[in-house]
C-alpha cells in the first residue's frame, strides 16, 4: 500500500505555519513598541530605572513632596502626587516604548524605555 504524498496532518501543519506567518513577520520584522523598563527622573538626582516586569509601588521625593508611582503588569503610572492639577495621574498607565509623562510642579518624569524602536521619535504637545 502506498502512502499519500502529503498526509492530512502535513496539510494541517502547513496551514498552521502559513497562518502564523503574519505574526512571525510582525514579531521579527515589525517595530517592537512594548517597553521593558521605566525611567524615573527627579531633578537634581540620579535617574532610577526599574523593570516593568516586577510589580512594585515606589515613593519618589520631588520638589513639592512625595509622588507615588506604581508598576503593575508591564505598565507604570503616577498614583499620587502633590501637584494641584494632577495631570500626571490623569495620564494613566504607560507601557509603550517612548511613552512619557511628568509631574512638572514636583519635577518628576516617568518614561518607558524598551529595546525596540518607538513608533514616534518624539511627541509634540
Amino acid at each position, binding site marked *: 500500500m502506498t502512502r499519500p*504524498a502529503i498526509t492530512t496532518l502535513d496539510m494541517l501543519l502547513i496551514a498552521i505555519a502559513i497562518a502564523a*506567518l503574519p505574526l512571525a513577520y510582525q514579531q*521579527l520584522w515589525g517595530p517592537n513598541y512594548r517597553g521593558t523598563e521605566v525611567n524615573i*527622573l527627579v531633578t537634581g538626582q540620579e535617574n532610577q530605572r526599574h523593570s516593568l516586569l516586577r510589580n512594585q509601588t515606589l515613593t519618589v521625593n520631588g520638589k513639592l513632596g512625595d509622588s507615588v508611582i506604581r508598576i503593575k503588569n508591564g505598565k507604570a503610572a503616577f498614583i499620587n502626587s502633590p501637584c494641584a492639577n494632577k495631570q500626571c495621574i490623569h495620564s494613566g498607565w504607560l507601557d509603550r516604548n517612548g511613552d512619557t509623562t511628568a509631574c*512638572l510642579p514636583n519635577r518628576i*518624569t516617568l518614561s518607558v524605555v524598551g529595546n525596540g524602536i518607538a513608533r*514616534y521619535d518624539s511627541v*509634540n504637545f
Partner: protein
Amino acid sequence: MQYRRTSALLSLLFICILVTACSKTQDEPIYRNQIFAFGTIVELTLFNTNDETGDKLSSEIRLMMEEFHHHWHAWQNGPLTELNNALSDTKNKTKQYNVSTEDAKVINQALALAKTSDALFHPTLGKLIALWGFHKDEPNTVPPSAQQIVDTLNSLPSLEDISIENNTISNNGDKPIHFDFGGFAKGVIVDRTIRFLRQSGVENAIVNAGGDLRAIGSAGNRPWRIGIRHPRDLGVFASLTIDNDEAVFTSGDYERYFEHNGQRYHHIIDPRSGYPANTIASVTVVHNDSATADAAATALFIAGKQHWPRIAKSMGIEHVMIIDKENKVEITAKLAQRMEYEVTPPPNIEIRHLP
C-alpha cells in the same frame, strides 16, 4: 510521491528561513536623555551619538537653557524684570533702557512677529497673564473679576508705544511696559540649542522642550517621525515625518489651566478680550524657525476658527493644523499631504486655503 512531499516541506522551511533570517538584531544608535531646564522637561534625541558625548552635550545644554530662562524670566528677578522696571518707572522720565545687541535682536523679532499677527501674539501682556495667575508654577483656582480684567486691559501698552534704536528700548507711551515672552522664548532657546548642536558636530537631532520641538537631519536611513498629541485624549492624534529641518509647535487649551465651576480657564489669553481664547482645542504649526512657529501657534489659537487663515498668511506660515473642540480638523493643503491620522475612526477634515 516522496519527492513531492519533501519539496513541500522544504518550501515551508525556506519560507520560515526567509522570514527569520533578516530580522532586526540591533537597536538604532540613538542617544536619548531628559533634563529639567527652562522650567520644563527637555528631551534630547541625538542620532549616532555615544553616551559620553550625549551626556556632555546634555550638561552644556542644561546650563545654557537655565541661563536663558533666568535672563528672560518674566516674574523672577533678573535682566527682563530690570528692563520691565525701567520701562515702567514713572521716575525714569525717558523710560529707556539699553540692552545687548543679542537681546535687542530677540525683542525686535518678537515685536515684528507681534505686528504680523495683528497683535494677537503680544509680548507685553505680562500684567494680564499675571492677573490670571499663570505667572506661577501652580495657577489660580478662580478667575479674576470682569472689572479687574477691564482695568488691566486699559493699563496695557500698545505695540506703537515701544521703539528700539541702537539697542536702546524706549517706552514712548504713558503706560507701563511688562514684557512677557512666553509663547516665544521657548522657540528662541530651541533654535539656539539646535545651533549649539550643529556647532558641536551633531547634524541629526531632536530638541523637544516641554512638547515643542525642532528636528534636524534624520534617524539614519529614515526620517524622524513626530507624534502630535490628542488634545482631549492621552494618545497621539496624528503624526508626520520631518523634512530635514523643521520645528513643530503646538498651542493647546490643555497645557496650563484651572477649572472653576465646571469651566476650564487656560493660559492662552486673548489680548482683545482679556479672557482665554475659546474656539479651538489646539493649533499645530510647522515651520523652519522655532521662534516664529512658537509665536504663530499662539496667534493662530487666539485668531480662532474664523480668522486663522488670514493671520497664518500674514505671518508667512503655510503648515497649520487646527483641532477644534469636537476633534474636527482644519488643515492647510501643504500640511494635509504629509499628515497621518492615528485615531480610529479618522477625524473629519477640512482643507482650508490661505487668502
